[in-house]
């Protein structure tokens, strides 16, 4: 009763019905859009198949194989449609993960599965191409599994460091906090990122060093407590503070006559400028008996931090432990002690230095953009779930349905801010994120410099939008 031909007809009818239903009932859905795109790309081939089908039906009325030919045309059309829907899905979702780019690359393996189904379906009815279709389908299936697995794993996109150092800013004129923030950004890639697992900045320090108390660092010493520990290390016989020539290391001094460190800040500067001068026990290059360090010289390529940047980094190392950081001049002098003038990295703008990159901290938007673009450019989407904003499904921070959230939070006894309305609460959360930290999210994750990055127009647009978001309700349409 249910032979292959009849089953094929039933399957084709069901799929055709499903497509028609989607088109009729959900005219604005993503699936409909996908089918429209597929039609736009593949209509010429589809037209040929339909023409063939009509020819078989009406032009070869006496052909005893007419039914078979028409049936194969239907199956061919079905496979062809599925193939082009898969391509449309690929085209729609293919992007380079740029901020604001449409689509979701994680959906691409779905295309491979669709082509697999298409191949195996057609292989059932086109005997001449059966083996090729089955083999092809199988390869698509294997690739879809592997690509699917790749997309299931945690996704990290690594941006290159800025083209040049923090040009345009004088590190000595910055406040201690700004200088420390700059240091944190160099180490971890963002202000407040020191608690984020896997965060890494231009300095690349967390590749090897640990920074949290108790964290087991296997590749390089944990730098927690280093300002105090430095004083102890300098007393180590191996460090040979009084006479560098007695050191048993690959390099005895950072430069001839540079000598050894006498303060914690000098010790840190020497470690950066000459990692080989003293190697903490157990962290040397394997086989060198701790005489050689695997750490690169920080002011040279590939890390290539400028002295200003190293001042910022060292400031952060002190400041984050509640220690009074040495003055920028003291740190600079420490570096000058261990880096001869000819060897010092050139400041941005100097001859030989590369073009200056964008100035960090400068406004990232003009305020004229649509609100979704502002969210994208300001990177809010990376951490927050913001209904109505494509791609804003971050889980690092709370979901921003502020019309629902804000009233309750303002009344919370733990709330220390001054806001009295939803709009004020949103503004406060952006400018001073620590005024109220939503549980269970940790403090200091959200950058504190959005007040500088976003101008009044942009802030207003953000506040307008977030203040309308309610849990369980449709987000407002973006203008």
């Amino acid at each position, binding site marked *: 009763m249910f032979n292959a031909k009849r089953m094929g007809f039933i399957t084709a009818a069901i799929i055709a019905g499903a497509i028609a239903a989607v088109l009729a009932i959900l005219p604005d859905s993503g699936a409909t859009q996908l089918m429209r795109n597929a039609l736009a790309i593949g209509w010429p081939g589809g037209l040929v198949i339909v023409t063939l089908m009509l020819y078989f039906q009406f032009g070869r009325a006496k052909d005893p194989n007419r039914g078979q030919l028409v049936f194969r045309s239907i199956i061919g059309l079905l496979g062809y449609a599925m193939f082009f829907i898969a391509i449309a899905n690929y085209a729609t979702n293919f992007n*380079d993960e740029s901020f604001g780019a449409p689509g979701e690359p994680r959906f691409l393996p779905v295309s491979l599965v669709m082509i697999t189904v298409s191949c195996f379906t057609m292989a059932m009815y086109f005997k001449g191409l059966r*083996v090729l279709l089955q083999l092809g389908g199988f*390869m698509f299936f294997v690739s879809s599994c592997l690509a699917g697995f790749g997309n299931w794993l*945690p996704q990290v996109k690594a941006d*290159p460091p800025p083209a040049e150092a923090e040009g345009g800013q004088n590190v000595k004129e910055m406040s201690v906090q700004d200088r420390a923030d700059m240091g944190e950004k160099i180490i971890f890639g963002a202000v407040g990122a020191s608690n984020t697992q896997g965060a890494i900045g231009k300095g690349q320090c967390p590749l090897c060093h640990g920074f949290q108390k108790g964290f087991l660092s296997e590749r390089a010493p944990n730098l927690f407590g280093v300002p105090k520990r430095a004083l102890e290390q300098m007393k180590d016989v191996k460090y040979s503070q009084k006479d560098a020539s007695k050191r048993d290391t690959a390099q005895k001094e950072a430069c001839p006559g540079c000598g050894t460190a006498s303060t914690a800040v000098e010790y840190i500067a020497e470690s950066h400028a000459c990692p080989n001068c003293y190697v903490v026990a157990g962290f040397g290059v394997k086989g060198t008996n701790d005489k050689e360090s695997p750490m*690169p010289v920080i002011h040279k390529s590939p890390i290539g931090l400028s002295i200003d940047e190293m001042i910022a980094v060292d400031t952060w190392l002190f400041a984050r432990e509640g220690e009074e950081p040495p003055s920028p001049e003291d740190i600079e002098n420490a570096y000058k002690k261990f880096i001869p003038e000819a060897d010092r990295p050139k400041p941005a703008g100097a001859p030989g230095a590369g073009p200056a990159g964008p100035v960090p901290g400068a406004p990232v938007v003009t305020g004229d953009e649509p609100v979704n673009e502002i969210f994208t450019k300001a990177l809010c989407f990376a951490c927050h779930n913001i209904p109505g904003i494509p791609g804003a499904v971050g889980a*690092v921070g709370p979901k921003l349905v502020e019309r629902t959230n804000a009233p309750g939070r303002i009344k919370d006894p733990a709330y220390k801010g001054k806001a009295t309305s939803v709009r004020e609460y949103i503004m406060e959360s952006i400018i001073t994120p620590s005024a109220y930290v939503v549980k269970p999210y940790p403090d200091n994750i959200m950058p504190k410099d959005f007040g500088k990055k976003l101008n009044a127009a942009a802030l207003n647009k953000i506040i307008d939008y977030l203040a309308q978001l309610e849990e369980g309700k449709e987000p407002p349409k973006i203008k």
Partner: protein
Amino acid sequence: MATLNKQAQKKIWAFLALGTFVGLLLLPLFLSLPAGASGGAPAPAASTAPPVAQPADAKPVEKSRDIWYKTEGPVVGAPAPKTTDGPKDYPRYNFESRVLLWVANQQHLYYGSFVLAVPIFCMVIEYLGIITKDKALARKYDQLAYDFIKISLTAYSLTAILGGILVFTYLTLYPTFFGYLASIFRPVMHTYALLFVAESGTLYIYYYGWDRMREGFLKWVHVSMSVVLNMIGTVLMMLANSWIAFMQSPAGVDDQGRYLGNIWHVIHTTLWNPINVHRIIGNMAFGGGVVAAYAAYRFLTAKTDEERAHYDWMGYVAMFIGVCFLIPLPFAGYWLMREVYAYRQQMGITLMGGLLAWLFIIQAVMIGSLFLTTNYYLWQGLERMRGAERYQKYIKYMVFVLITCFIVWLTPHTMVMTPGELKAMGGQQHPVLGNYGVMSAKNGAINTIITTTVLSFIMYQRGNKVPTVKWAPMGNAFLFGMFTVAYINIIGLAIYGYYIPANVRVGLSVPQVATTLSCLFIGVLLNSIMLKGAKELGPTAWGQVSVRSQYALIMLATAFTWMMGLMGYIRSSVRLFWHVNEIMRDNSPWAFTHTIGFAANMISFNVLFFWITILFVFWLGSLGIKKAPVAASVGQKVPVPAGSH
């Protein structure tokens, strides 16, 4: 000379002919070397150009230090250009240029690997055909070698076309970068082009002369040509490797990227040889996979039993070659990685413990899948042999062992998590499953998988045979004891690893790997000796194997291709935002590193594109069949790889 027999005389003439042929073909290489070595450097004594008188007020030659070799040399090149994002340095379509280059590069590499690997198989198989005394077997070997080279011929044209596309892509999308590379590698690139001509000529003579050079002395000349073909191919590959090795670990230039006149330093960078070895072995495994897929395709479309028998055998041989080269591949990879760490520890950490570490999880899954599939194919192959039923009952236990180890093998060490997830789990590692994500468990798992695969192969060797040597009981007992002790040792050391410090634990992998390799070499060798003159319970019925087994071959081929794309991506992307590591920065908008998902999508695209085109090549190959495979009736004795049943 009178004492020399006819065969020896033929050999001497063949070697002489070969020597002349090699000399003529490599002549362009030697001619170009002096010019290349000078690189335009002021070395008039070695240069073929007439000496130019230096003006009296000429500036002294500036000298600089080699960034890697630390030697001093005259500055003869311009510094690496500092590019800016714009149409001058990065002209573009409305699409990511890097993705276009990725596709062009990968396709050229797939075809290039294939056409370099296949002539090596041909050489070995044709040689086997010459030295085999059984004429029927010799013809069969010869036919197989011919089949191999026929497939690679069409692929060869495609390789050249794709090479052209690749160069055009570089020139049109990355002109500044390519210009810099070409300014340094100018002599190497010309030599490469000349060698390519030599390779093409040799290949065409080798293929089209197959029938004319079928007998006697000419056959020796013919097989000698395959040696030449492979020599040129290997040099070609090594020259191309020097470009990518330079991009990853530059040498021969100073810290500004200025060429210092020593072309050998530029070619012979610290990662060049590890990459060469890794690629040769990888190409062989990949080539085996592609030929196995071809054989599977021809098996599935075969119309007669003879055809099915021939292609079943061909698929088995190709799979065998592929897996043989798959086994040493991790060791070559280990050497490469060790050299990467020695060159720049940060680069090593970015690969194995940083940004790209997750890609190695995918690799682990693939390696596990490859071994599972190989086992499955061998078990399916037991169906060809009467008497192999007695081994079927053990398969279920082996499946259990393999799957368990596979799951342990792919358990990740840590996961990237949000602070909330981290808190909920109580740390970076899961309290229970985390125990399986550590090196101790993984080392135990992968060694158990390989040892079980060896056991499967030994089982397969014995399929339809019963050893008749006198010492067979003792040999069996030894094999049983060896494998039992091996499993106890591997798993015991894995458990012991949990109780000792990390630095001691690392050393445990040595006895574990030694155990596995002992099982592989001693087990297979002993079994092969035991099976000499063994009693056959029934013939091996080539062609009488399940269709599923052929899908296992397709799975192996697809997985090899995917893994090659994956590892190539890892090697390339570890340069992060550098065109030439630490010398020339990538300032295009695509200097970032893509997510794993995006990379996986691109690798899939490349793999499928390659397979769609190579299926077309297979189809073309089937159109031009002039000779039917040598008839071999079902159950006829056919040659098998050394050590097989």
